[in-house]
């Protein structure tokens, strides 16, 4: 309980501790804390910036989307118009083709009719000749009446 030289020893120890603390403990820790504070501030600022950028990007995305939608509807309209045109064109072409085919068919039919008529005529003439031959065979000489036969046959051909 009495004051003695411990006082001096403790004072020395005290100052050594303070000196050590001032030299080796306080500055590095304070520097680290300061640096961390800056880092956190930077991080927060970056976060805010990111958020702002995100908002901008979202706005931009909405704009782009709207543009794209408008474009798409334009394209669809154009396509519809084009499709109508194409259908009309195809219709026209088809009608033309149909007319062409019809004409061709008619011509063919006519040709065939003519062919058939020719064949028929030939058959009839040959039949007539056969009949005439039969008649003539029994009545006259062929060579004798050749002129008459020819006349008839040519008359048939004109018919």
């Amino acid at each position, binding site marked *: 309980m009495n004051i003695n030289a411990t006082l001096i*020893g403790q004072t020395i120890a005290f100052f050594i501790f303070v000196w050590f603390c*001032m030299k080796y403990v306080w500055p590095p820790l304070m520097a680290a*804390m300061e640096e961390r504070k800056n880092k956190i501030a930077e991080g927060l600022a970056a976060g805010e910036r990111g958020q702002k950028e995100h908002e901008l990007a979202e706005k931009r995305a909405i704009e782009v989307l709207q543009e794209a939608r408008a474009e798409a509807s334009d394209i669809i309209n154009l396509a519809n118009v084009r499709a109508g045109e194409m259908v009309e064109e195809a219709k026209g072409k088809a009608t033309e083709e149909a007319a062409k085919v019809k004409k061709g068919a008619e011509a063919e039919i006519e040709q065939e009719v003519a062919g058939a008529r020719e064949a028929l005529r030939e058959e009839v003439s040959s039949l007539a000749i056969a009949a005439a031959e039969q008649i003539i065979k029994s009545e006259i000489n062929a060579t004798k009446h050749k002129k008459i036969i020819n006349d008839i046959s040519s008359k048939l051909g004109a018919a």
Partner: protein
Amino acid sequence: MSGENLTSSEYIKHHLTNLTYGQHPDGSWGIAHGADAAKEMGFWALNIDTLGVSILLGCLFLYFFKKAATSPTTGVPSGLQNFVEMILEFIDDSVKDSFNGKNPLIAPLSLTIFVWIVLMNTMDLVPVDYIPHLGQLIGIPYLKVVPTTDPNMTFAMAFGVFFLIIFYSIKVKGPGGFFAELAFHPFPKFLMPFNLFLELVSLISKPISLALRLFGNMYAGEMIFILIAMLPFGLQWTLSVPWAIFHILIVILQAFIFMTLTIVYLSMAHEESH
């Protein structure tokens, strides 16, 4: 509990006696047996227990804080670093609140004072008989484990602070300015002796109040723990537990008061005029 061969007053006295090393009146050097023998050694004696425990605790403090400061990460701090930084921030805030000047010494000084006193006061929470009995088992007759219950300890720190007050007063204001502050205030110049007397008393009362406040609080706390320890075995905890819990508050509070007053005194020493 007290040993069977000790009376209550002997038990208390034993617990309040430092392990003092010095020169006996007969000229031989050795450890004093009892408070009277220690007193007879005069000024040139050392309280080995106070010195040992306080320096041990100071080294403990610096070891852990240095460990945290050797590789301080700027990323997510580890447990120890987090704890150390928490204390540092608390000290830094206290210093910034009360100290207006710029001095790189004040903050580390406050940190050292605060943590060291907290550690020394905390020794009070170790049950009063543990360490002295262990000491007796290995042949140490007296062991007072709370350095702050030794006035040598508290006065040493207070005088250290006092020295810094004088040093910075003279450094900032110059010897003349410091003298003017003491002599020409608060009354006009013709009352100089009276002013000088008033200001010197207030100046000297600073370290004394610092030292006695801490010493008185811790000494009384220790004394109550010793008294509680003399109660019957089964009853002790009913008093020692509430007192220990209350004492946790005192341990921190006294360290904080010592630190804050140090900052305030040094702040006053840095100011040109008040």
